[in-house]
């Protein structure tokens, strides 16, 4: 064990302001670790991730000849990159840096200060133990294929494609529909400006179609993605090929998911009569009716061809409803106001908005709300319980009308409002393609089933997988400006890789110790990436490090202990474990 004592470890305990120091006695943690073998210094500091914090690490590496660093702070998923970079700037191999998560896993989830301090001490001891056995790992680089695949050609995909093509890189767009533009091609106007969709969208579509950097595959879907950041191989399938299995293969460096949304199936919520009663429409069906190229030429008409004299607009149908979708779909309040404005503009009908809350949080939205309500749109606070065609003869309700039954929560009484037409502002849900795309790309979805971003605040356009980005309603309900902003964000994140042209490959992959391999081939059985081949001549397994993703399943399976999972070696894990239990 001479090696054990030859290391020079610097330990840093972060206060994270009061995020950690409020619950953990950081000085006690540093003091407890200072006498551990191999530890040269242990300091606590207000914000380790700040410039002065990082500078301190760099200076100490030079001054004290530190060859291992432990930073006890937040999650490594948050700042491991930061400290690896700082270490390598001071000449230390980035894999000789270890983090101990004493914030997300300790100070934020523990009330008792003594318990939190104890837990932090063992966590830091474990990190010190682990880093002793860390080895420098050479980082190889690979070139980045100068192209991007965009899945989905709605407004999000279109914006991302234009940004990337304008920067000079090749874009492939795959769209399952026979046209590009997505859901907004079904709409007539946009809130709150009431501009025509065609005026906004057509120039963008023309730009796409006339840009020789952009190749659009309509009626296609991606069926298989292999490889990793910088070097993805994508198979796409022609959906009209009638089983003739015409497949194309594309090489791309990055992937942007813009798979968009679908509307929640409102026939599942029977009490509003959708699919059962005439003149009950979803918001998107009403949008289609208002288009000049729509079924009524843009006129608002009942099924019998007459103009309605009153229209009820029901908010939050399926949204904010624990039986359906718990979340707020964010756009329904505003498009419902838009519908009221269009009804006012094109008919003499009265409009009633039944709402829980009006969420008018965007630029110009509150002003729009005021305008619509001041121009005669009626607003009733209360969620509708039922829409029925059973009129109450005693109440003088007109024959053939739809009765909206709701509780007016301002008056605190049940009301019945007879109308000629009902528009349901239904919930947005992830596109039905999301299931397939998730399985194809192995990326996560949040509890609302939209794709999950790498960090809800700090990395909204990235997925947890390098080189795969997200934008638009694939990530969560949002309106057009937010979609465009996120699409440009995703494009610029993808461009960062495309512009660099090279990407560092994660060296934490598995390697075979040829001298110990018995040739049992168990590792080949468990490898999901076909990364392990077999050398018949020497009767040993061989790992292709370009294909290996570093899951370590082979290492845990090898009965001869001949496979090492680099950076997650048995030694590193077992010594970490012993550190965690060192208070026994």
């Amino acid at each position, binding site marked *: 064990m001479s090696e054990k004592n030859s290391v020079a470890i610097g330990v840093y305990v972060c206060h994270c302001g009061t995020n950690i120091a409020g619950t953990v006695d950081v000085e006690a943690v540093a003091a407890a670790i200072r006498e551990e073998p191999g530890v040269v210094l242990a300091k606590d500091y207000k914000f380790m991730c700040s410039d002065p914090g990082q500078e301190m690490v760099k200076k100490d590496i030079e001054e004290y000849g530190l060859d291992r660093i432990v930073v006890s702070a937040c*999650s*490594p*998923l*948050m700042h491991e990159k930061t400290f690896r970079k700082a270490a390598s700037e001071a000449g230390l191999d980035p894999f000789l840096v270890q983090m101990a*998560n004493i*914030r*997300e*896993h*300790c100070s*934020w*989830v*523990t*009330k*008792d200060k003594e*318990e*939190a301090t*104890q*837990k932090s001490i*063992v*966590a830091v001891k*474990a990190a010190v133990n682990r880093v002793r056995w860390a080895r420098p790992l050479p980082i190889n680089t690979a070139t980045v294929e100068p192209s991007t695949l965009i899945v989905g050609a709605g407004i999000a995909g279109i914006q991302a494609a234009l940004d990337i093509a304008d920067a000079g890189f090749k874009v492939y767009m795959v769209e399952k529909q026979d046209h590009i533009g997505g859901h907004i091609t079904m709409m007539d106007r946009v809130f709150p400006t009431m501009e025509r969709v065609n005026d906004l969208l057509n120039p963008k579509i023309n730009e796409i179609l006339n840009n020789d950097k952009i190749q659009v595959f309509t009626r296609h879907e991606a069926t298989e993605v292999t490889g990793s950041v910088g070097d993805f191989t994508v198979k796409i399938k022609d959906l009209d090929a009638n089983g003739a299995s015409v497949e194309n293969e594309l090489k791309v460096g990055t992937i942007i998911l813009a798979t968009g949304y679908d509307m929640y199936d409102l026939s599942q919520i029977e009490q509003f009569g959708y699919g059962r009663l005439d003149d009950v429409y979803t918001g998107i069906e009403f949008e289609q009716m208002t288009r000049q190229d729509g079924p009524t030429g843009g006129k608002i008409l009942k099924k019998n061809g007459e103009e309605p004299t009153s229209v009820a607009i029901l908010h939050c149908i399926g949204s904010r409803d624990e039986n359906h979708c718990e979340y707020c779909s964010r756009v329904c309040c505003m498009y419902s106001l838009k519908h009221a404005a269009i009804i006012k503009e094109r008919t003499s009908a009265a409009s009633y908005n039944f709402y829980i809350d009006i969420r008018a949080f965007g630029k110009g939205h509150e002003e729009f709300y005021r305008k619509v309500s001041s121009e005669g749109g009626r607003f009733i606070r209360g969620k509708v319980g039922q829409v029925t065609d059973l009129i109450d003869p005693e109440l003088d309700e007109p024959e053939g009308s739809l009765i909206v039954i709701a509780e007016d929560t301002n008056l605190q009484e049940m009301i019945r409002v007879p109308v000629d037409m009902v528009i349901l502002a239904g919930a947005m849900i992830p596109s039905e393609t999301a299931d397939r795309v*998730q*399985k194809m790309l*192995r990326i*996560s*979805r*949040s*509890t609302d089933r939209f794709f*999950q971003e790498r960090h809800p605040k700090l990395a909204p356009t990235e997925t*947890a*997988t390098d080189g795969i980005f997200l934008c638009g309603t694939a990530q969560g309900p949002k309106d057009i400006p937010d979609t465009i902003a996120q699409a440009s964000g995703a494009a610029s994140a993808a461009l960062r890789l495309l512009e660099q042209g090279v990407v560092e490959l994660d060296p*934490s992959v598995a390697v075979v110790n040829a001298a110990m391999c018995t040739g049992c081939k168990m590792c080949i059985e*468990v490898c*999901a*990436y076909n990364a392990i081949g077999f050398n018949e001549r020497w009767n040993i397994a061989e790992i292709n490090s370009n294909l290996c*993703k*570093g*899951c*370590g*399943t082979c*290492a*845990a*399976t090898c009965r001869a202990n001949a496979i090492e*999972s680099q950076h*997650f070696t*048995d030694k590193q*894990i*077992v010594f*970490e*474990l*012993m550190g*965690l*239990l*060192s*208070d*026994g």
Partner: protein
Amino acid sequence: MSDTKEPRIVGFLCTWCSYTGADLAGTSRMPVPSNLRIIRVPCSGRIDPLFIFKAFQEGADGVMVSGCHPGDCHYISGNLFAKRKLAVIKRLLEWVGIEPERLHFTWISASEGAQYSEETSKFADQVRSVADLPNPLARTEVMS
């Protein structure tokens, strides 16, 4: 239970789903037992059965393993291999005198911070119920 020592639990979490879910429990300030200590592994498939034995040998009172949900594994199938191995380990542990209550395998996704908080608390209670029973694997002499 005030006079008995709090049991110590080791949790092996895959980085992509469960560790991220545990981080989310943290950012959401949900309670997590303070006697749970975490080791991050790339995939639950990385967990060598020997790590579990080693944990009990070092005096752990319980071991929890959590990976991505079936079908969601970042590495396609590592979680399924983990589940198979752990099923065998559990029986083996029982055979050497370690109660099955001391080992727990679960799936927690990156968005399931609340489930993480719940599962870990439940498991801590479960371990507490058997923690006073002898652990025949534990080394008797205390490491110096």
